[in-house]
């Protein structure tokens, strides 16, 4: 393959899932119109969900899911040892994701509630950067295939771009949406990292912050905005804790 006259080689990739819904990996098979070209950039060495061929000589590892069981720690460390580039893929890998909602109750109580007296190995959900070094994060629930394509092309052509630094509101305004705050809803658009094309507010549902905080957000000002508008604090808290992306900010507040 040639790019701007330079020879480039296919990316030897492995895709791995831990505790998750596998919806982010599924995005790799979406956007069907560009799929054959996209697959043409990849040398898929290990991707259990779509291929029965498995090799351990990948350079780039996409890791989906959070860590909730001890055997997952060893598996993740082995992937880290092999991969030159490890990408946290989706909100569960990046922040712990919705799985973190189970952390509000003790693990033993969760087991008892679902399995009764059966012994089940589980621990509080953690993001993967708590266990290994992460080279790049693609947040989102699910990840956006457009963004994944940009990142993959960036890695293959050695021109890796960064994600947007600004919040979802910027994209949302460009789509000429009515602000959900004006419709009486708490929306996390002002504090969440853009790059999703404001898909939720464009569908008239509030942003729940799946992409985590934008760079240099003014969090106290956001809290003040919700107060000034007289909107529900409970509702705001439910949204801010949904994907665990704002944990650092909430810890700081309390």
């Amino acid at each position, binding site marked *: 393959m040639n790019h701007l006259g330079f020879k480039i080689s296919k990316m030897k990739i492995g895709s791995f899932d831990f505790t998750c819904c596998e919806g982010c990996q599924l995005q790799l098979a979406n956007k069907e119109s560009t799929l054959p070209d996209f697959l043409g950039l990849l040398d898929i060495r290990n991707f259990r969900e779509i291929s029965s061929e498995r090799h351990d000589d990948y350079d780039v590892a996409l890791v989906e899911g959070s860590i909730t069981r001890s055997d997952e720690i060893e598996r993740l460390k082995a992937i880290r040892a092999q991969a030159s580039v490890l990408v946290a893929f989706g909100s569960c890998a990046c922040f712990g994701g919705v799985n973190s909602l189970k952390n509000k109750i003790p693990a033993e*109580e969760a087991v008892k509630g679902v399995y009764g007296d059966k012994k*089940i190995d589980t621990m509080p959900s953690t993001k993967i950067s708590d266990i290994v070094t992460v080279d790049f994060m693609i947040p989102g629930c699910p990840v956006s295939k457009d963004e994944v394509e940009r990142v993959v092309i960036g890695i293959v052509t050695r021109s890796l771009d960064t994600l947007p630094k600004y919040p979802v509101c910027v994209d949302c305004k460009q789509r000429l949406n009515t602000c959900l705050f004006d419709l009486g809803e708490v929306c996390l658009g002002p504090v969440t990292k853009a790059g999703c094309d404001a898909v939720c507010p464009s569908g008239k549902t509030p942003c729940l912050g799946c992409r985590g905080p934008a760079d240099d957000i003014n969090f106290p000002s956001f809290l003040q905005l919700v107060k000034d508008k007289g909107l529900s604090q409970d509702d705001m808290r439910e949204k801010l804790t949904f994907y665990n992306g704002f944990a650092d900010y909430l810890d700081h507040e309390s």
Partner: protein
Amino acid sequence: MKVDFNIDIHHLPRVEGHGNIHISVKDGKLADATWEVIETPRFFEMMLRGVSAERASFLTSRICGICSISHSLASIRALERAMEIEPPKAAKAIRLLAMHGETLQSHALHLFFLAAPDFLDMPSIVPILHSHPEIVKAGLLLKELGNEMSIATTGRATHPVSLVLGGVSKAPSKQQLKELKEMIIKRRTALVISTDFFRTLSIPEFVRETEFISLRNGHDYPFIGGDLVSTDGVVRDENDYLQMTNEYLCDFSTSKFTRLSRQSSAAGALARFNNNSRLLGHRAHEIAASFGLEPICHNPFMNNIAQLVECHHIFENAEMLIESLLDDDLQEIRTTYKPKAGAATGAVEAPRGILYHHMETDDDGKVVKADCIIPTTQNNANIHYDLKALAAEAVKEGKTDRETEKLCVMLVRSYDPCISCSVH
């Protein structure tokens, strides 16, 4: 010759989630066969406690990356029934179209990415892109059409945005609906190519009689709500889901098992077909007959064909739904409601079979108790006992370890299991 062999497949590839197959043959006889689900549990029922009814479906959709729309709608239906909210007619049609999109996408993913490589002796779809480019192209056109239906009706393909309690938060534009209709008409060719391709594949002959469970409402081929029925003659109200599932724990699986009148039961496209075939569209009927698919079919490998038949039904029914939405002004799409205490079940036919969510709310509309019973959970026992029967038959017929292994993995894949969903 008396043979001895073991088959141990750790993390079976080309299925959603993590499951293992163990088969042991001693002295030319099957000693044991196990379907072991080892997925990490996420405890969604516990996460749901205290979540607002409004937000619950946004959480449950994350149970599954492939059938997120079904999970969202099962929760919404349970909560709407619990709080006595009646969604507007147009919203119901939009939701059904969303289900069609998801089912088409999921069936195309399964048929082409997960199942087809076995029939062609390939490890994945990637080499098939080169050996049968026109077939893969047809499959991708079907999958894309499914995704486009979901995007138009819910905002995106995975994890719906605009499915909300009381209806939908945003209706597709007339322009989107017209484009979708044109896309369906144009892609009929892709469906014909796909159907012709599946005619060339040889579906293994294997029968183990079982009980098929699905929804039935008497007027549509079922996708949302209705009676709970089985091919053994059981009929129950939607709220009596626990009597249909009878979940129990077994030591080799993190997924629970279920049963009704027999040792195990099956859900999915074949179960829907076996209970509702007369409600299929005209074309879907013809296709089923042309494949020799008749109710009650007990060959699990025919689930692949039942999925294909459903793709034909979706093409017909989606076009009708779009027509009805084009005739509507789409102004009434969301009913306002006051949160209240209540309890109810919402059952929908997810791509892989009947899905139950049961929700209880308090006066503020917060979820106090939730229960989700997933199609693959209901299939795991059937897969387990099918594996034993199939492996025993293969060994008796003198098949080698490789031949036995291939049949067994194909069997599991025929159920299109969604394992992380089944453990949730």
